[in-house]
């Protein structure tokens, strides 16, 4: 296979994993069983996998403007499910799930 592999570093946890340039940063993490970036819809719609790229090059597919504004996109914010690495990348996790312990009413 001709895919080029890059090193992804999740700065919050120190997690480091390899991601081919043809696979999204989120999917590569999930397929390796790694943790750190919340995994949601994998389609750029729900926003839980929001990250800020601190260093390195990424290419992104369309992301819901609800979760990443044009200004944020210029500042390096992105949804990890729509990010494909063009070099080694370091990122911080911005998105989150609510903690299950905060659910006194079943769903909330």
């Amino acid at each position, binding site marked *: 296979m001709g895919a080029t592999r890059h090193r992804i570093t999740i700065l919050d946890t120190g997690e480091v994993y390899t991601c081919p340039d043809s696979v999204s940063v989120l999917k590569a993490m999930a397929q390796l069983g790694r943790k750190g970036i*919340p*995994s*949601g*819809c*994998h*389609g*750029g*719609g*729900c926003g*839980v996998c929001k990250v800020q790229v601190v260093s390195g090059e990424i290419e992104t*597919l*369309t*992301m*819901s*403007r*609800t979760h990443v504004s044009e200004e944020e996109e210029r500042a390096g914010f992105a949804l990890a499910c729509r990010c494909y690495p063009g070099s080694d990348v370091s990122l911080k996790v911005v998105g989150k*799930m*609510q903690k*299950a312990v905060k659910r*006194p*009413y*079943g*769903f*909330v």
Partner: protein
Amino acid sequence: MGVMRIGHINIRVLDMDAALHHYGKVLGLEKTDMDPAGNAYLKGWDEWDKYSVMLTPADRAGMNHIAYKVENDSDLDTLGKRIRDYGIDVEEVGAGELPYCGRSIRFWLPSGHLMYLYAEKEFIGKTVGTTNPDPWPDSIQGAGVHWLDHALLMCELDPEKGVNKVAEVTHFMQQVLDFKLTEQVMVGPDGDVQAATWLARTSTPHDIAFVGGPVMGLHHCAFFLDEWTDVLKAADVLAKNKVKIDVTPQRHGITRGTTSYFFDPSGNRNETFAGLGYLAQPDMPVITWTEENLGSGIFYHTGELNEAFTEVYTEGA
């Protein structure tokens, strides 16, 4: 008389080509039209009206509106009056403004979702026709879903601030649109907070459902399949097409449906839902799930909610 069934859902998509591949080739809906604004219209092979899914290109995912079909044109006047009397503004919409439909009425549900009611939509017919039909057409693609079955809308729920849009919208659906409450989840210290509801106008367990969450939204829209083996095969089709599966095939305690959940290429959640569940009749007693059995109600086998299932969803307006 009154509301017959779910008519269509209008979903926003970030990439129309990817969406058409998903809803067309993977789910097996048939594309019936594209309009000059770029909206796509699709129907299941077992549906007869022109579309049950309207896809709108947009820069954010989610739902624009949901529409239900009423039996008679006069129902629009009767229900319009009842909705106004309940205290909700109703807008009269001219024929054709809701695409390929006759006149309609439009209003915001207490949960903040936009709903249309209409009586007429352009007729196309089932793919197998009405004279000596085959049980299914040879043109089926992918999962070959039959029809749009229901939608689940997320409603704001924050009991400590006195907010329960699930209870508000459920009351409206029962009192004004004559939906039958089939099942509910009751939570909280005294078990008196209605946190999720399933309601029907047909004889199936639900034509719409509401679940409480931090913000309102679209949780999923569901497509009907005959049986369990079809759900399993549909999941194979999803995996072949690298669709992000949220929940692999299993059974709901609530509705008894066999199910699988997954996301469209824009992150809107879909479900394939199979089986009758049970015959929902007006005199059937309401089924109640208590908080400690919530997990079994949603996912009967594991008895546990997965985190993404309750926390990941797209916008509802």
